[in-house]
């Protein structure tokens, strides 16, 4: 019986693939082939269909086998699992737009993956009778050298994007029944990430002329900040709505709803809670995992039951938790010696920033977590070795460097200081020195010796002699002599700027935090 059904379905796929020998020139005429510009659901559908033929899972959904993500996509606002306030924010924006039509054309939705940004937008757009046109960055661009040399045929990514926007905003779709239109940009062309100015120009241009709203969806704070700086947001009246990861209860509720509709139950060894935890507030990933577990189970029902486990998404541990785990290491004493509560290897795996930066963080913060000079000295010694390992341009030795630093600090710190102190970001000065030296050459052209000598021997003494400085020279002397603390600090800031972006992201994210740290908020920096 099963064999026959398998055979049937393979035949079906064969036929359906044969049918497709002609590619339709008009997108929306064939029902199972949606336009390129819209989301390419079709390919996914087909892929699943084929796998479905091999693995006979879920009998109920065999005919219209789509993923649960699409099948149970919320259709009305009541189904959404998002917080009511956020929902209202998005609704308000639509209301405002409809009421006043012209102002605030732009909306930025910002939040981690799988928290329902696009879904909310789709549902509410439907409610307000908007049709959505989505920009998909074309991948099949022909980079033929002939074309590039020919100016008329070649279009760069910016132009294509620009043209898409102007076409999509100006001309209504022939097929759409909805009156209003909304443009959704999720997938930014790479060129904007490198050079955001071009996007800014386009945004400014369309702020003046466009007639339909444009919604940008970002899932990365750095990118969002880079693409849409604060000034631009103000200038073009862009509204930003930040989304948080989906709450535990909401995820579980959504999964239960799906299970109910599917009329299946979870096996006893898998817990919804477990699925939530491994997904870390990402609803999409949670649903996919649920699906996977049930599929796997169906497949193995007759055979011996293998314990199915969720393959876990890496636990999202933020930087501060990691630092806390290293610097306030907890030990559980066992029969033979002690063990760390958090395995140093796990900590190492969770490090998601540059090795050098992470060790920099550790070094900047370790001293005040130690209580006696003996262990501090040993720890400093180990960090010094770690730096040597980090200097080798080799990924493996770099990781060894981090591992060495983590273990060194954890082992040496046998009595962590009890008091809590805010974490400070690392400071590195090496890069600043070249800028000083260039400044010196331009401002003191008459000195023929190296900048090192000038800093060490000439300037400190000149300052006290009768040498007459002009203004720019005075500035340099002040900044080097430390006479003007502010310029020194400014220079330090400049050097630190590349870290600050990362840090801003961390301090902005409102992820719930229950770290091992004592004390309250740890999103706090010493500012010097």
């Amino acid at each position, binding site marked *: 019986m099963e064999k026959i059904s398998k055979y049937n379905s393979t035949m079906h796929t064969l036929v359906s693939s044969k049918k497709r020998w002609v590619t339709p020139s008009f997108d929306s005429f064939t029902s199972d082939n949606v336009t390129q510009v819209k989301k390419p659901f079709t390919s996914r559908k087909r892929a699943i269909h084929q796998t479905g033929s091999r693995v006979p899972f879920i009998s109920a959904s065999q005919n219209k086998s789509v993923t649960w993500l699409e099948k149970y996509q919320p259709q009305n606002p009541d189904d959404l699992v998002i917080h009511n306030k956020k929902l209202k924010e998005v609704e308000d924006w639509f209301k405002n737009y409809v009421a006043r039509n012209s102002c605030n054309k732009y909306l930025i939705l910002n939040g981690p993956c799988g928290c329902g940004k696009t879904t909310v937008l789709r549902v509410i757009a439907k409610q307000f009778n908007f049709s959505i046109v989505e920009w998909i960055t074309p991948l099949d661009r022909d980079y033929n050298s002939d074309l590039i040399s020919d100016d008329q045929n070649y279009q760069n990514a910016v132009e294509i994007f620009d043209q898409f926007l102007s076409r999509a905003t100006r001309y209504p779709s022939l097929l759409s029944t909805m009156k209003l239109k909304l443009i959704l940009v999720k997938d930014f062309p790479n060129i904007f990430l490198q050079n955001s100015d071009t996007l800014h120009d386009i945004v400014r241009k369309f702020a003046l002329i466009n007639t339909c709203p444009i919604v940008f969806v970002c899932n990365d704070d750095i990118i969002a900040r880079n693409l849409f700086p604060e000034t631009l947001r103000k200038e073009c009246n862009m509204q930003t709505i930040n989304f948080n990861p989906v709450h535990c209860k909401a995820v579980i509720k959504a999964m239960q709803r799906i299970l109910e509709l599917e009329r299946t139950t979870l096996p006893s060894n898998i817990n919804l809670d477990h699925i939530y935890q491994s997904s870390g507030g990402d609803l999409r990933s949670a649903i996919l995992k649920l699906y996977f577990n049930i599929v796997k189970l169906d497949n193995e029902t007759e055979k011996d039951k293998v314990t199915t486990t969720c393959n876990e998404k890496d636990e999202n541990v933020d930087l501060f938790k990691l630092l806390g785990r290293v610097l306030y290491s907890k030990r559980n004493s066992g029969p033979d010696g002690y063990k760390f509560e958090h395995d140093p290897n796990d900590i190492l795996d969770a490090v998601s920033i540059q090795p*050098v930066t992470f060790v*920099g963080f550790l*070094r900047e913060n370790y*001293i*005040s977590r*130690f*209580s*006696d*000079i*003996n262990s*501090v*000295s040993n*720890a*400093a*010694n180990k*960090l*010094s*070795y*770690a*730096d*040597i390992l*980090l*200097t080798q341009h080799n990924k493996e030795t770099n990781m060894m460097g981090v591992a060495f630093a983590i273990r060194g600090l954890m082992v040496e710190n046998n009595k962590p*200081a009890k008091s809590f102190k805010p974490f400070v970001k690392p*400071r*590195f*000065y*090496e890069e*600043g*020195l*070249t800028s*000083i030296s*260039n400044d010196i*050459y*331009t401002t003191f*052209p*008459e000195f*023929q*010796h*190296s*900048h*090192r*000598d000038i*800093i*060490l*021997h*000439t300037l*400190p*003494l*000149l300052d*006290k*002699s*009768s*040498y*007459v400085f002009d203004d720019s020279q005075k500035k340099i002397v002040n900044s*080097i*002599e*430390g006479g003007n603390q502010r310029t*020194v600090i400014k220079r*330090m800031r400049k050097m630190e700027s590349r870290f600050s972006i990362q840090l801003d992201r961390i301090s902005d994210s409102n992820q719930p935090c229950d770290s091992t740290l004592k004390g309250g908020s740890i999103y706090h920096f010493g500012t010097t």
Partner: protein
Amino acid sequence: MSLWVDKYRPVSLSKVDYHKTQAEHLRNLVQQGDFPHLLFYGPCGAGKKTRIMMLLRELYGTGVEKLRMGHLNFQTSNNKKLEIMSVSSNYHIEINASDAGIYDKIVVMELIKNAAQTHQLDVNGQGEFKIILLNEVDKLTKDAQQALRRTMEKYIATCRLILCANSISQVIPAIRSRCLSIRVPSPTNEEIISILMNICKKEGLSLPTELARRIAEKCDGNLRRAILMCETCKINQYPFDKNQNIVEPDWQKFIYETASIILKEQSPQNLLNIRSRLYELLCHGIPTEIIFKHLLKHLLKNCNLSVKKEIIQVAAEFEHRLHRGSKIIFHLEAFVAKLMLIETNFITSYMCDILEFS
């Protein structure tokens, strides 16, 4: 007005105040019209640069002194643009390649290629070859030094390199063997005194020998510093008094204070305090070996005899690691922490001894 340092700088090899035989050798070398690549090395303020300029003047005449500043632009492989200052005359070009940081290799290669690929237009007027003067060769990365070594051989027909370094130990042996190394040692205290006296005589001032001696002792064999100190002394107080205060650079005082703090209290809290002082020093562009040297100097003055050996050993160890690693502060901090540990251990053992004795 120009500073005394620049005003009384000797311009001709026949008028040097010290190392006279060496100057004679240099003159002989140049009179042939040709010479190999040169590598001048010696402590700062010993007169390397002065000798190089004298050498060029001997070779090309006073035209060498007409200098112009220029910016050289380079592009790295990942499209980062670099701008390096250069000083040049019709006959030579001078550059400090280590300013480019880790990109110094590109600077060295491009510069020499550009300068060396073309022959001089006017062989009679300009000489057969150009001179490229590279400062701070010891601060170049190993990559850049390797690049230098290849280009040195390749373009020997059209250019000569004059390299200038503080220490020869950081220069790779391949370069050392390709150059004629010339060591310019610091002047002795007597030489410094006589130079100071000479300058003051030319300025029409009377300098007490006692004060000149004190300046000579304080300047660490750095003639430039000695002359500057002398000038500041003159501005602070004239007529000179033999016991008058000699201005020292602020950073030096700062390092000495830091050393005293290390000896005063040994605790993690104090280490934090020292760290902020180290940051301050680094931020002001004080080179690390200077920090090491002066810290060590002051510590050795003030610590017990029994720990001196250990302290020197520790300093050598961390200074070495600093060159192996990349982030200065890691090693400086570890050094200070270790010093504190040595000091605490010493104090506790000392206390134990006293207790036992009593």
